[in-house]
């Protein structure tokens, strides 16, 4: 078994590439990729998310090329070493040129990546770069707590205030946003660190107790998207799931009105309108 | 060491087997369901007469009624109970409650000749050939008054379905709350002068405590029965139960200072019509100071929330 170690060290990178190739089919890739029935089919549902995906692919390509090249080199070296067994090895004191090269080139690549992504980062994270439309009219305040998401909407027609207002609308685990419009939410935490993670929208932001953190996104396609917690927050972290319902503005307005009507239910108003509904 | 290859093989297989033991998913949690029909099949029904505590005694006329009377006395000395609320120190409404005097603890009332008051003596179930009324009940409707921030009377026996008029005779609001073991609970909040109607729908195995949530020291006991054979001893510990049918009866004797009934089967035999059975029932003082302590686990949670 002369070539055992060469084969061994070439085997695992090949396994990695195979796993990579089958990952959409196994649902290990972007949510919905590889599933023809899914709503998103692996695409991001926000324009910024598309930018993030493009960044991801860029880095993937760069690192894949490097990965393949270095492993070919490794494999060749191992193979040669195995084939020429018994041959005397070259005793090297190092190569200055080589060391300079393999410092400068990766540095260059990384600097390129870090500069290239600055724009996307700015768009997502720098508050002064948030779209005007989002900042003017935040949709809701989302408070993470063990183990649910509590949501406070301003009354229809009013602006969300930092201090809760008497006519604010409250709900749990059910965040509605209008589509095709940049929306902003204010993220808070009631107890420990959580993380607002909407995978289909490529949005992730830690919720830090004591801070109010704005997050913006624009959903292009109506639908129900899961909202999960991405920061281990306790025994219920795994089931801290909510839903984001993206719907056209008219439906969103109707939702808020219905919520307001339900929240002002005094037990009598619906009876008056001959509704069979109890309570 | 020797046999290292064999050894490492053993270890690997042991570990693999160990990991594999996690396979097979979680415990099969799918339950098995059987169905029990709503009504019993028409089986020969058990004896319909209430399983009373009495058996007809041999020898002696089967008809007729006797009387069971006597006194409940305390054996030994019971240390007097401290006042429930000291004068002027009521946690709530001090202008009305304990304004001019302490509110005494009525849970242990011993007369000068060691008679024990407020002891419940009753039959669990209606006896065979029992009467519907003993002839000693009060004429007017029963009342439970909240005056001076205490309940009056402290102990009473009522019939199921009988209305007790709860009255608030204090200038401050009171609340009355009962938590019977078997029947429906009752609760009402009463302003000055308001009344409520307390009705027990089922007979209870032991007396039910009534409390006030505003004045948490207030306590009174009512025992609902579906027959009239239940009395409360008077201030001197005396009691009388007339019109007790001939036979053997087993009385329950209960006092609020003992978690368990003092007697569950106090046997009284009426052998013939007109017989009077007189008993002096002695209760050890030690039994009356033990109210079980913390038999229910009190969960002490942090009050800082």
């Amino acid at each position, binding site marked *: 078994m002369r070539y055992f170690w060469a084969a061994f060290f070439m085997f695992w990178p090949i396994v990695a590439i195979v796993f990579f190739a089958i990952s959409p089919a196994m649902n290990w890739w972007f949510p919905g990729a590889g599933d023809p029935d899914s709503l998103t089919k692996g695409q991001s549902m926000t324009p910024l998310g598309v930018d993030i995906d493009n960044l991801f692919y860029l880095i993937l390509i760069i690192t894949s090329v490097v990965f393949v090249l270095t492993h070919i080199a490794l494999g060749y070296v191992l193979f040669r070493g195995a084939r020429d067994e018994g041959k005397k090895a070259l005793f090297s004191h190092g190569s200055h040129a080589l060391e300079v090269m393999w410092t400068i080139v990766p540095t260059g690549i990384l600097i390129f990546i870090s500069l290239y992504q600055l724009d996307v980062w700015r768009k997502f994270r720098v508050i002064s770069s948030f779209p005007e439309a989002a900042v003017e009219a935040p949709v809701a305040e989302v408070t993470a707590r063990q183990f649910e998401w509590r949501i406070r909407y301003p009354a229809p027609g009013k602006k969300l205030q930092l201090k809760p207002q008497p006519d604010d609308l409250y709900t749990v685990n059910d965040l509605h946003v209008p589509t095709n419009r940049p929306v902003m939410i204010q993220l*808070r935490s009631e107890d420990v660190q959580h993380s607002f993670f909407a995978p289909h929208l490529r949005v992730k932001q830690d919720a830090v107790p004591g801070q109010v953190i704005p997050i913006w996104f624009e959903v292009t396609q109506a639908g129900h998207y899961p909202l999960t917690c991405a920061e281990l927050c306790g025994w219920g972290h795994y089931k801290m799931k909510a839903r984001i319902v993206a719907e056209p503005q008219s439906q969103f307005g109707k939702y808020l009105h219905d919520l307001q009507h339900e929240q002002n239910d005094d037990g009598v108003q619906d009876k008056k309108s001959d509704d069979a509904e109890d309570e | 060491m020797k046999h290292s290859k064999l050894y490492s093989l053993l270890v690997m297989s042991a570990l693999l087997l160990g990991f594999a033991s996690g396979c097979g998913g979680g415990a099969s949690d799918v339950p098995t369901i059987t169905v029990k029909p*709503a009504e019993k099949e028409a089986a020969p029904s058990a004896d319909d007469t209430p399983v009373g505590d009495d058996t007809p005694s041999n020898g002696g006329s089967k008809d007729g009624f006797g009387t069971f009377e006597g006194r409940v006395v305390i054996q030994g000395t019971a240390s007097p109970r401290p006042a429930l609320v000291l004068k002027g120190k009521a946690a709530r409404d001090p202008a009305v409650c304990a304004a001019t005097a302490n509110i005494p603890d009525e849970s242990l009332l011993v007369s000068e000749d060691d008679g024990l008051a407020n002891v419940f003596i009753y039959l669990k179930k209606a006896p065979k050939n029992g009467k519907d009324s003993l002839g000693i009940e009060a004429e007017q409707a029963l009342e439970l008054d909240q005056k001076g921030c205490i309940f009056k009377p402290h102990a009473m026996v009522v019939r199921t379905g009988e209305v007790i008029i709860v009255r608030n005779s204090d200038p401050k609001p009171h609340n009355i709350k009962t938590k019977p073991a078997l029947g429906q609970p009752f609760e009402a909040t009463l302003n000055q002068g308001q009344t409520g109607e307390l009705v027990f729908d089922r007979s209870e195995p032991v007396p039910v405590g009534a409390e006030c949530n505003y004045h948490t020291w207030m306590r009174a006991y009512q025992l609902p029965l579906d027959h009239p054979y239940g009395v409360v001893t008077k201030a001197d510990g005396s009691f009388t139960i007339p019109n007790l049918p001939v036979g053997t009866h087993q009385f329950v004797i209960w006092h609020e200072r003992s978690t368990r009934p003092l007697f569950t089967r106090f046997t009284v035999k009426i052998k013939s019509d007109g017989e009077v059975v007189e008993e002096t029932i002695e209760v050890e003082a030690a039994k009356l100071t033990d109210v079980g302590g913390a038999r*229910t686990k009190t969960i002490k949670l942090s009050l800082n929330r």
Partner: protein
Amino acid sequence: MRVLQLLILTLVFAACLLGCNRPESTFVYNTKTEELTRDVGSVVKERLDGDFGSPKNSVAWLRMPIDYGTFKGEVVEVDKDASSVYQFRVAFGSNDDKETGDEEEDAETSPTPGEMNLAGLAIIWKSGDYEGGSQIDGGKRDGEKMATLQVAAWSKDEENDEEGVLSLRQKMDPPPSVGDTFEIVGHKLSFGRQLYAAHCQHCHGTSGDGAGPTAEYLNPRPRDYRPGKFKFQSTLKTNRPTDGDLQRIITKGIPGTYMPSFLLLEDDELDSIIQYVKWLSMRGEYEIKLVSQLYFDYEQVVFDEAVESALKDGLEEFEDGTRDEEPTKGSIRDELVATANADLPDIAEQESNVLADAWNKEKLESAVVVPLVARTPDTAESRARGRVLYVQNCSACHGATGRGDGEQVNAYMVNDQTREKYPVPGLFDDWGQSIKPRNLTRGIYRGGRRPVDLFRRVFEGINGTPMPPFKGKFNNDKKINDARTWDLVNYIYHIPFETRGKSAGDSATKHGRTAASTPSTR
């Protein structure tokens, strides 16, 4: 050395196999049940197990008003040659009910299981030789027949949702005939059990006793359903909650506590959980009531005393000649135990009927608290009137400023189980936990924040807590009473927004607006 290595190897191997142990869930019994004298206690437990079962082997008692989930079907094909069968073809959807032509309605009245797993469910025959149960005699008690045939598997046809092959766990000898109708009962109970185990059990416990493994870390503790008391219901205090109440609690959670929202459950999952919780509550209450009737006579200490005195009486009777045999302690014990056990079936019958009546759907729906008048408009005058009522009625517990720091937190309550004062001052609920009057300045309303929810809390109080009912207290006229209750509700809504001089909220403007100085209300 070799021995040591082998020893280590064995231990490692054994440790890895620990995962193979799968302990079974069981219901726990009340402390009072355990305190009964053994012979009586075991009969009570036996009856309880027979009437409700265990988590793994549950009994769907049709007397209880629970929707266990039913599928109606009939046999379409049976292997004619076999003398006994385990499986046969069936079609679901009742043929008795007339098709109304309305697809939705038909689907509701005669649902088909579709892809559902029917393993373990009971099958009751409605016609044919097996009508009324099963001819396989298993578990007859007191003349009651229990259906003991269970489904092993159900495989639906590819195209047709309604037809497929039904396999049973037990052999049917002889086989059923084509056209025999049956019902498969219990899918909601079974599904509810599995969902409850996944979502609820770790806090609320297998028996619904609020003592699951995570419960000890929570304040307030998870609800113990067994007394049948639910705090936030829309019905009168003497009634049980409606299904709608339970649904609201499960989907909205309870803010300010550890009860999370389960909004994302499917409708059928939610319904199954609700039925299962009701079932657990009924089981718990049934046990409590059975034991209440027997406890004061048959608790161990009392029972021993009773045996002593009965022995004395028995010896007297023996001397009188009224008793034939000389009684011994053992024979007296047996006599007394026999009395209890003879009483038990009647007691059980009585209590189960009372329980079934208490949970009756129509009764609950008619007991819902509905205000007589619509909410008074939320004006400053209304709030002022509410403030007056608040000071008179509420401030003693909830405090002058609504922070829950009224003078009652210094009062000593008495535990109604032991009739002894609690060692610490403050309020306690019926489950023995310390409880504070709600801090109304936070704007957290546990039972729901709709006006009708607050109205119900004030009107009827909160079950199991010292919060009293105020119905009829503001005025003898019911309509005026309700109008004044609305004034109070308007004021309560306003409390979090009142400025009260020097409070944390005021310093916010000085030090910049951070989350810390603006309390989040939910």
